[in-house]
């Protein structure tokens, strides 16, 4: 209890409060701008936090994460261009509502659902993080290895075009993490005689390159894209009738979003799409979906914000990122000298409560900002791309450089960006690669330690029920979707043939 008050007290410090406000403001702006994403913003903001104390730094980044997830809904509703991937599902019904003159009602519903989902997940975060951390204290290297493999296998089902591509990108990320000196033997691996590589490839330049520069090159191909804008907006809170209509949708999506967020690697985008589908499935007015159903906004918005809180649980309790953005927050934790995982909760519990407090305040702040300033934030898209993206590159360049005052890191950032652009073209997302890069060290170290413990006898992995459980979950995660997909197709074909035969 003392730790909780200490943590919350730290967040209420005026300077920290101001930083949270900055995080929320930047988050909503970035979320609202098509092309700019939360992971990119958190990666670009990392260098600014170097001089800050760890708690305000992580609090600001967490606030940005919450607000960024919500910000995407503004442009999704007003210009049919989701500012961020988690808001894609919001556009399905948000834009039709805006077109028929109900933009204010749609934005109000998006704000209320987002806050409801966010607060629900933070309550779960408060309860689940200490419990999960306590359970993880008993984990030995084999359990950690199985957990990390499970997290990597979850890449198969994160949003993206294909499971196989996500897995390849994840494995490539792990492979990149092996660059540098091998800890057990001191042997240089993949350094090609370059001294800067002996230390390994730093996370920050790769993150900035993949998320920011890759997208910049993508944007250079779409300079003439224009958006149809809804301008007459008076944002209003949902009416009693609206609220009664969506209350169960919000609750269902909040639970679903939090659960998806807690799963390693799964993030807000998956949660939002599932939230939308579930809202439609349970709705009495399915035919309204796609034409401006209010539940079609409440479902994805509650789910994507709930996933943001949920994703912090494995990140802080296990050191396993719950989403692309929390992967970047995990890097920030490491940069500020923290060791994410069960020991974080054990040794610095006030830190966890401070993050909880920061995210709770962020939810309140973006609710007020979202309602009061939606009209202004919608105008942010008027910033010329010809100035916005050069600014992003300047921040990328300086961000990559300032991490360790090394020009080599700027080159790493640039190469990562160009590779990221080419990968994106062929359906390989940047998030799986980042996940692999971050989890790489844990995977290799825990595997090596396990093999030493087991005297190279693989079968001893199966002596631990936790390891077996994670391996079973891994297999289910990898094969459930393709197997059911193929069976479904075969079933549909045989049904069609039978009907044809009739």
């Amino acid at each position, binding site marked *: 209890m003392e730790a909780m008050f200490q943590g919350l007290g730290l967040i209420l410090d005026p300077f920290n409060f101001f930083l949270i406000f900055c995080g929320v403001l930047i988050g909503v702006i970035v979320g609202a701008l098509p092309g700019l994403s939360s992971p990119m913003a958190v990666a670009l903001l990392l260098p600014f936090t170097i001089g800050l104390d760890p708690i305000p730094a992580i609090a600001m980044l967490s606030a940005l994460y919450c607000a960024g997830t919500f910000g995407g809904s503004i442009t999704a509703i007003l210009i049919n261009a989701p500012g961020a991937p988690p808001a894609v599902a919001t556009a399905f019904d948000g834009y039709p509502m805006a077109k028929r003159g109900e933009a204010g009602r749609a934005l109000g519903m998006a704000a209320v659902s987002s806050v409801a989902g966010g607060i629900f997940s933070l309550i779960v975060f408060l309860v689940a993080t200490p419990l999960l951390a306590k359970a993880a204290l008993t984990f030995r290297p084999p359990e950690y290895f199985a957990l990390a493999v499970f997290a990597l296998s979850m890449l198969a089902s994160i949003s993206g*075009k294909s499971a196989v591509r996500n*897995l390849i990108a994840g494995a490539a990320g792990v*492979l990149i993490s092996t660059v540098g000196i091998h800890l057990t033997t001191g042997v240089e691996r993949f350094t090609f005689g370059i001294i800067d590589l002996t230390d390994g490839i730093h996370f920050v330049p790769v993150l900035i390159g993949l998320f920011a520069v890759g997208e910049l090159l*993508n944007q*250079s191909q779409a300079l003439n894209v224009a958006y149809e804008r809804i301008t007459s907006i008076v944002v209003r809170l949902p009416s009693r009738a609206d609220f009664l209509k969506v209350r169960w949708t919000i609750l269902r999506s909040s639970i679903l979003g939090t659960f998806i967020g807690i799963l390693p690697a799964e993030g807000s985008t998956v949660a939002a799409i599932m939230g939308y589908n579930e809202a439609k499935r349970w709705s009495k007015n399915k035919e309204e979906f796609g034409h401006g159903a209010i539940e079609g906004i409440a479902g994805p918005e509650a789910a994507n914000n709930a996933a943001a809180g949920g994703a912090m649980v494995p990140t802080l309790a296990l050191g396993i990122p719950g989403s692309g953005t929390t992967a970047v927050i995990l890097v920030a934790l490491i940069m500020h000298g923290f060791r994410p995982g069960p020991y974080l909760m054990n040794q610095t519990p006030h830190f966890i409560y401070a993050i909880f407090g920061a995210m709770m305040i962020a939810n309140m702040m973006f609710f007020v900002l979202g309602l009061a300033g939606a009209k202004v934030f919608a105008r942010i898209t008027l910033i010329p791309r010809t100035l916005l993206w050069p600014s992003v590159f300047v921040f990328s360049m300086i961000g990559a450089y*300032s991490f360790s*005052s090394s020009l080599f890191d700027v080159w790493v950032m640039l190469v990562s960006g160009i590779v990221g652009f080419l990968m994106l073209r062929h359906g390989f997302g940047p998030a799986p690669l980042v996940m692999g890069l971050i989890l790489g060290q844990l995977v290799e170290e825990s595997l090596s330690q396990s093999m030493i413990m087991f005297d190279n006898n693989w079968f001893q992995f199966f002596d631990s029920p936790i390891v077996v459980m994670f391996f079973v979950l891994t297999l289910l995660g990898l094969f459930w979707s393709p197997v059911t997909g193929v069976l479904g197709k075969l079933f549909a074909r045989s049904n069609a043939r039978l009907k044809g035969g009739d």
Partner: protein
Amino acid sequence: MNQDPNDTGVSEGRKETSVSSLIHWTDFRVTVIILAISGVLYTVTTGFEEVAAMLAQNIPPEWFPQLLIWVIVLLSLVLPFEHLFLEKGAAEIDKDRSEKVKPMAMITAALLILAVTSILLFGTALAMVVVCIALPLLWGERRAKVLVPYFILFPLAVTLLFTQVLKVYFEPGAFGPAIQ
């Protein structure tokens, strides 16, 4: 030219069963590239310094990277056939690559490389100015009243923020001191 409706059915039937239609040729080329890179990296791993078994504790330094390369190779072999298992088929994965990379993207990439190279010559601060002039111009910005304040004020603000507030050391570049 009249078309026999039966012909269409036959050709579609052939199409369905032909081996060629089972393979997605763009992904096949992607697989070949991944295999080539994997081959090179695997060869590199065989050149890692050898260490005594006792020091390596039965886990030689090349073992884990080689394991990963095998995983990547096996997964990449699925790629040319993956479209058969996708709900929307090849359409979904081909959406972003249906058109060739636009020259603007390539010119932008070249400009970014030049900008980073210019840090060595002109230093970090001037490289930022280069980016803030060249990139908007390349992307079609011609309004002087927008561009001039932007390339002066923005790099100046960023330089002050990083050097004075965040105490980040900026590269002076080869000609930097002379320019200053």
